[in-house]
């Protein structure tokens, strides 16, 4: 646990405020951690993933004795500490051992606590510099493509999909520059084996990255061609820890209902002085017919006609 800091100047106050929870969150800052042994292949993979993730990537270049699946309590404590210290909400941990070579573990955090973990083994990698093609601009948002029915049916692959979206594209934005759609991260699976067999191995995951080339098609929508960019990874799913049910539920808290969102948009527009989309209503009240009212003094009430009219009008 970090000590609590009381801001002493405006700059540190702003820095602390930037860490406060937001309704619409920024991209997940990811820390890339090297385990006790990584090897050239894993180093390349992590470097390339970092290139894709930049500028929201932090590199831990020194070796760390971290084993999220074996030594849960100690590793979890380390992860939580790092998450707080760096205000990071995701980890990619590379670790290679004889039993599990080229292992890459994705750890997702919620409220500086570990939400879920997923380990994959890299089987084959073509790194980014090996493919001599133009690369995407750092910081541009990628398009994401997932191809297989298993991403919807198998919980292991659902988790993988959710994890990869969180890693590359978890940020909610309200507009995007169409000219800036430069690259695609495509995740596809090998052919699915006969279902309802628990022991059968899970199909290989193919992660490919392409840059897009938009060609004129004669319509508004361009025709797209893809050029391989790298990295190209072939992975196998290994161990995983699903999210704790209660934590998972809190992490999916609804921000706003659609009506509330519309209302807040309308209010901001109003505040800016724009009257676009604001419906102005006039309520019409029928005029009081004074001729039908009783005379100067109302019987019993002691109210004058003038007062009566005033009270009726208000």
């Amino acid at each position, binding site marked *: 646990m970090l000590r609590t800091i009381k801001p002493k100047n405006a700059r540190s106050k702003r820095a602390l405020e930037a860490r406060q*929870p*937001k*309704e619409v969150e920024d991209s997940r800052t990811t820390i890339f951690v090297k385990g006790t042994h990584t090897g050239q292949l894993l180093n390349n993979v992590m470097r390339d993933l970092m290139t894709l993730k930049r500028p929201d990537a932090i590199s831990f270049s020194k070796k760390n004795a971290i084993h999220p699946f074996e030594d849960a309590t100690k590793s979890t404590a380390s992860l939580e500490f790092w998450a707080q210290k760096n205000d990071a*909400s995701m980890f990619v941990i590379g670790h290679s051992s004889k039993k599990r070579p080229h292992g890459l573990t994705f750890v997702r955090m*919620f*409220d500086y606590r570990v*939400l879920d973990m997923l380990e994959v083994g890299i089987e084959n990698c073509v790194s980014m510099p090996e493919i001599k093609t133009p690369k995407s601009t750092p910081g541009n948002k*990628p*398009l*994401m*493509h*997932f*191809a*297989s*029915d298993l*991403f*919807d049916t198998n919980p292991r692959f659902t988790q993988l*999909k*959710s994890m990869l*979206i*969180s890693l590359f*594209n*978890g940020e*909610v934005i*309200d*507009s*995007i*520059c*169409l*000219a800036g*759609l430069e690259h695609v991260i*495509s995740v*596809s*699976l090998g*052919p699915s084996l006969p279902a309802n067999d628990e022991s059968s191995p899970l199909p290989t995951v*193919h992660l*490919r990255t*392409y840059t*897009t080339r*938009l060609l004129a*098609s*004669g*319509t*508004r*929508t*361009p025709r*797209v061609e*893809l050029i*391989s960019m790298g990295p190209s990874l072939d992975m196998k799913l290994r161990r995983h820890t699903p*999210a704790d049910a209660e934590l*998972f539920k*809190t*992490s*999916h*808290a609804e*921000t706003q209902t*659609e009506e509330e*969102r519309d209302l807040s948009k309308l209010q901001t527009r*109003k*505040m800016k002085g724009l009257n676009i989309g604001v419906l102005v209503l006039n309520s019409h009240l029928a005029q009081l017919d004074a001729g039908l009212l009783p005379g100067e003094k109302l019987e019993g009430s002691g109210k004058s006609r003038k007062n009566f009219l005033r009270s009726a009008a208000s």
Partner: protein
Amino acid sequence: MDVSNILASNTAKYQSITVEKETPLEVDPGLLLVSDLNPIDEESYASNLEEHLQSLARDGVQALLGSLFSLPTQRSDEGPLAQLPPPTTAIPRAKPLPKPKPLTKWEQFAKAKGIQHRTRDKRVWDEERQDWVNRWGRDGKNKQVEEQWITEVPANADVDFDPRKAARDERKARVTKNEKQRLANVSRGQGATNPRKAEIEKTLASSRISTASMGKFDKKLEGEKKMRGVKRKFEPTEKSLEAEKATSLALLSRMDSDAKKVRREGPKEEKVLNERKAVRFASKGRGGVALGRETARGKGKRTKGKR
């Protein structure tokens, strides 16, 4: 003129931007995401993996771009900005939702009345100077009266009336009032209870357990909270002589001591005549000795015509 060639090439172009799949692709433009839920074709997978993957990705991306380019756009310097709808795929958050900030008393009132918040400009127009001046701060409009070199004084003002001081005091009082209100809002936001209310609750709690049965058979009011942590303790009827002696002595000493008196002494009887005050009054502040001397001489200061 034969245009069939041109037409054919044109239709080829149009076809190339539509994607036909057995299960239609699921597009989530809010997250720039497309999911292809068709099972993987084993044949093409086995024959040429890279080509198979690229064609799958191309189809998916084409569908995604189709939906992105059909969104309403806004112009910008870098090119058209597509207005994205909110995402449909649920992704866990990184941090919990922010807690709603407690409303200030004014904000509560404004909300109830439907008053819109309006930001006030920092500068206001000065008619005399024909220029924009600060509302507050350096050469602020709020300090105009106290900073001008000559000020009109009302005809009925006191001799020591200082118009500059009066204006300054008024401004400072506003500042103090605002600070007081801010602190009240902060304490209200933290859920601080009213000290008077806390005191009443404490008194009520002690009065409720002040019967022999510790309030067990008292009439309950509607909505009255149940008392917590109140238990009646019974001493054993038979106990050793030593223990009984000890408790009795403890009780006696407690009754004797001032700090925790079981029964307080009644209030002192107030005398009708305050002698000290009477002497001071009669001697006109000169003291009892002077008064005695005077009465002995029989020569006090008297008003005319009384004798």
